[in-house]
């Protein structure tokens, strides 16, 4: 029998984990209309020209310095949606992530929680991580401004 040569679509590296599929079809913490949403910090990463754009809003408990809400919206692919959805879960679960810890969140930790991503989709997890990092920076700058620093 002639064996049909594999195509790129047959390669297992292209497969998404069940967790990725779940977060793509049921994204958590998505904010479609931000008109009336008030956030402590805002982060934007990517560009629609590049194919992926990410916006992240965070709210922070000023007493504990932990993230209470992490909302997001993206113009991006399935991996970008799943990565950012997972990032938002990690930032808010178990009482909220401390700001100091959120600064250290890595694309690798997001991908690990997703059960892996194809290497060629790595940049999608970077976008969510970068937008969160920018939102944290924005929060800290707003706080310093408010405190007159």
């Amino acid at each position, binding site marked *: 029998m002639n064996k049909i040569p594999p195509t790129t679509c047959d390669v297992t590296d292209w497969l998404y984990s069940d967790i990725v599929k779940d977060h793509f079809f049921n994204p958590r913490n998505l904010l479609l209309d931000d008109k009336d949403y008030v956030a402590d910090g805002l982060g934007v990463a*990517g*560009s629609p*020209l*590049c*194919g992926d754009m990410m916006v992240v809003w965070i709210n922070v408990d000023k007493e504990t310095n932990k993230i209470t809400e992490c909302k997001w919206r993206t113009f991006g692919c399935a991996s970008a949606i799943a990565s950012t959805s997972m990032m938002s879960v990690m930032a808010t679960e178990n009482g909220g992530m401390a700001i*100091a*810890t959120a*600064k*250290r969140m*890595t*694309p*690798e*930790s997001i*991908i*690990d929680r997703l059960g892996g991503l194809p*290497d060629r989709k*790595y*940049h999608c997890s*970077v976008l969510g991580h*970068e937008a969160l*990092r920018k939102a944290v920076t924005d929060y800290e700058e707003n706080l310093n401004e408010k405190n007159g620093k």
Partner: protein
Amino acid sequence: MENNIIYTVKEVKKETGNVFTLTLSYDGAVKPFRAGQYITVFFPETGHVEGKSYSISNIISPTSFTITVKSIGVFSNKLIDLKVGDKLSASFPYGYFYTESDESSLVLISGGIGIAPFKAIIQESLLKTPNRKIILFYSNKTQKDIIFKNEWEDIIMKYPETFRVNHYITQEHVEGGIKSGRIPVSDIIEQSKNLSDPEFFLCGSITFVRDYWRGLKDGGIPEISIYTEAFF
């Protein structure tokens, strides 16, 4: 996307067979940047409208720095073919691959061209926090591939109490202080166990960074102490 500016190429220097360092400068308002950050370079004619990112490998002045580029395709070839005086469209430096602490020890783990940001981080640290301990683990395929080899030897001579480098060669037999094979995670953990407040920085290919991120985590290093920068 970060705001784009026009850089002028001031120098192009060959480092190893296919690795070059470009010195870039720009005119205009100074916006602070630091070691560990990168720029996104744009050559839209190559079809990469999103551009490609390159880490700063040395900070020269508030408006001048170097990037170190490995020639691997059309985009990077275009970059290394630039001549002194040529203009280049790229972003301001950005990114978060740096420590916010002046006290921590730095454990830097790099594969191949992933050394680029570490060159700048080491130089910045030696200048601003000269007592901070730094250990570099650097993996290459062959000895000829070691980038900035002479610079590492110079820094060791100048800062023997502060800076230590461990070279690993994966695709040829080596002797004399250089080790064969990949960097064992156990070496990293062993050498960092007596450091005060160590922070671990990983830079290299996606696979390299992922494997060492897992290895360090499995070895008991807290995630909050691990910074990653994967080249893709």
